């Protein structure tokens, strides 16, 4: 008979486990409660972290993904005999040049007109009008609400007077009336409203939130407002890690065209949102690790509780274990039930904890988020498969360890010693 577990070993261990498991009910209940508490703690912490992370991600995506925004500035370095303090002024036709030089990236230009007189029916106010390219809709996540659309390349090519409204502005101006199809007066010219922005969570913005502006084709903008100079340029890369290299080529392309030192920081004022995303990812990862460690420690304490109880059981049953050994029990048959018991208590506690945590999370999900700034920022606690897998793994390990160490002590019992007279 070797030391390896065979079928007989398993059956004997199992029978002993079944016979022993009805004991120690009070202790078992306390232990299961401790583990359940730990599980609730770890699940809630991770679920809040996950909810916060998802909310951050949604907010970040509100503006668009993997974007960099460039605002043209003045030179601060002498270059090829040209003086400093020279403003760099890209124009609409430079967009085409930049697109040729950055074939793998997507480039759009923007011209802003602040305080543009706007009127519709009896409403009149001043608004920010953004003239831009048709690709802006996709790049900057200007998705139209049902029944409308963003303008396309034909609108742009034919300088159509079409306007896309931010949802907040549309609500303030039109109220319950469907804005799409309405004709509005913008800077003295009639424009047809073709779409309204879908409501979105936007955390980062420049020149105000997207919900408050009107977007029109850049060609129309030039015709109506008589301006060609770009306010800023937006570059989109496919993946965040491509951004540094893309920005380098972007600088070189601009420097070659406008003749300035490509390392001139004053000209190249760039907001790299991908870098922000990378930092945010790291913060979220750090937060999750931190919360996970706290939850894990709580569980560990529960595990120590299980181990303690098992130690007490071993001590209490020393004589019985000695008797079983005298009757021919292998050490493995003695340890098996203890490991199973530790695992069973831990997993049962984990299951109870999972149910409680799920109920709490579902109840929290019923609390309305709208209008509550704290909740809007925090997001809703969310359980994911990753969280479940991590928790199960931690629980399983703790359960096995909590059973293993007491079991080892049980196996080291010397039957001759325990069977002496008391």
């Amino acid at each position, binding site marked *: *008979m070797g*030391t390896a577990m065979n079928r*007989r070993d398993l059956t*004997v261990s199992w*029978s002993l486990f079944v*016979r*022993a498991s*009805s*004991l120690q009910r009070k202790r078992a209940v306390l232990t299961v409660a401790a583990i359940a508490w730990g599980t609730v703690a770890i699940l809630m912490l991770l679920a809040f972290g996950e909810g916060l992370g998802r909310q951050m991600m949604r907010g970040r995506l509100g503006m668009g993904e993997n974007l960099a925004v460039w605002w043209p500035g003045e030179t601060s370095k002498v270059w090829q005999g040209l003086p400093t303090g020279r403003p760099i002024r890209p124009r609409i036709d430079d967009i085409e040049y930049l697109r040729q030089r950055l074939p793998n990236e997507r480039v759009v230009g923007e011209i802003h007109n602040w305080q543009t007189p706007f009127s519709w029916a009896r409403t009149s106010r001043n608004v920010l009008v953004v003239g831009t390219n048709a690709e802006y809709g996709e790049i900057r996540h200007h998705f139209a609400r049902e029944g409308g659309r963003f303008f396309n390349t034909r609108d742009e090519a034919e300088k159509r007077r079409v306007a896309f409204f931010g949802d907040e502005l549309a609500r303030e101006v039109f109220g319950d009336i469907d804005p799409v199809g309405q004709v509005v007066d913008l800077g003295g010219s009639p424009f047809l409203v073709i779409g309204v922005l879908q409501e979105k969570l936007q955390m980062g913005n420049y020149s105000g939130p997207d919900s408050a502006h009107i977007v029109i084709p850049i060609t129309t903008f030039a015709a109506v407002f008589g301006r060609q100079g770009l306010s800023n340029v937006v570059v989109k890369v496919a993946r965040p890690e491509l951004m540094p290299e893309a920005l380098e080529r972007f600088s070189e392309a601009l420097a070659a065209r406008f003749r300035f030192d490509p390392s001139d920081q004053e000209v190249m004022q760039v907001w790299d949102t991908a870098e922000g995303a990378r930092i945010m990812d790291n913060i979220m990862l750090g937060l999750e690790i931190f919360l996970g460690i706290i939850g894990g420690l709580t569980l560990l304490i529960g595990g120590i509780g299980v181990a303690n109880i098992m130690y007490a059981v071993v001590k209490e049953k020393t*004589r*019985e274990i000695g*008797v*079983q*050994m*005298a*009757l*021919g*029990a*292998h*050490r*493995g*048959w003695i340890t098996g039930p203890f490991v199973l018991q530790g695992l069973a208590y831990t997993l049962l506690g984990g299951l109870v904890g999972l149910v409680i945590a799920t109920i709490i999370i579902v109840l929290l999900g019923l609390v309305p988020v709208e209008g509550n700034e704290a909740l809007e920022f925090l997001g809703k606690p969310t359980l994911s498969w990753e969280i479940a897998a991590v928790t199960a793994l931690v629980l399983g390990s703790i359960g096995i360890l909590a059973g293993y160490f007491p079991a080892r002590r049980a196996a080291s019992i010397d*039957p*001759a010693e325990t*069977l*002496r*007279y*008391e």
Partner: protein
Amino acid sequence: MNWPIKRRNGNGSSSNGHIIEMAGITKVYDTGKIKVEALRGIDLRVGKGEFVAVVGPSGSGKSTLLNLVGCLDTPSDGEYRLGGEAVAGLDRDQLADVRNRRVGFVFQNFNLLPQLTALENVEMPLMFGGVGRRERRRRALGQLEQVGLADRVEHRPTELSGGQMQRVAIARALAMEPDIILADEPTGNLDTGSGSDVMSLLGALSEQGRTLVVVTHDQHLARRAHRVVEIRDGVIVNDAPAGR
């Protein structure tokens, strides 16, 4: 009280008919600071079917000897063959298997598992011996019937009298049909009536041809044995047929 007689056909004995063969056995307990010589050279042979009583004052080494005979412990030196099988060099699980197959223990304080019924207690060694569930039950019931407890099989130890508990323990010791029954003061915790019942039962087992080694202070029990071995200070000082 009359016990049903069932002759056993011999098994597990060595060619010369000795179940226990001990030569030059010593046992030293080394606690680090002091060494205690519990046994100082024991030579003992017990033949198949013998009923041996081991007597001696407290601390003489009786229980140590019984532990060695029952493979609960290993000698410090000397040679021991149980049923013809050399015990030296076996690991703990192998010793457990030897105990399971060859030795039936009866303790002074019964040592039944309190949460199990009488039947489950008797089934325990059969379970360790790998006997299937149904066969286990059949054999355990048979043994309980033999010790006169057929109507107590579903009782737990707390629901039994001392004498009944010891009879369950004897049934448990018999369950695997071992080569030898080892009993350590089997009547020590019993009143006179139950004690004499247990003695009669042990006597009946001996008459069935079973080999018994019994450690006892009880002169009545010692008189039932074929042979009395007296131990003092870790050596055998007297080994003679019992004077009935």
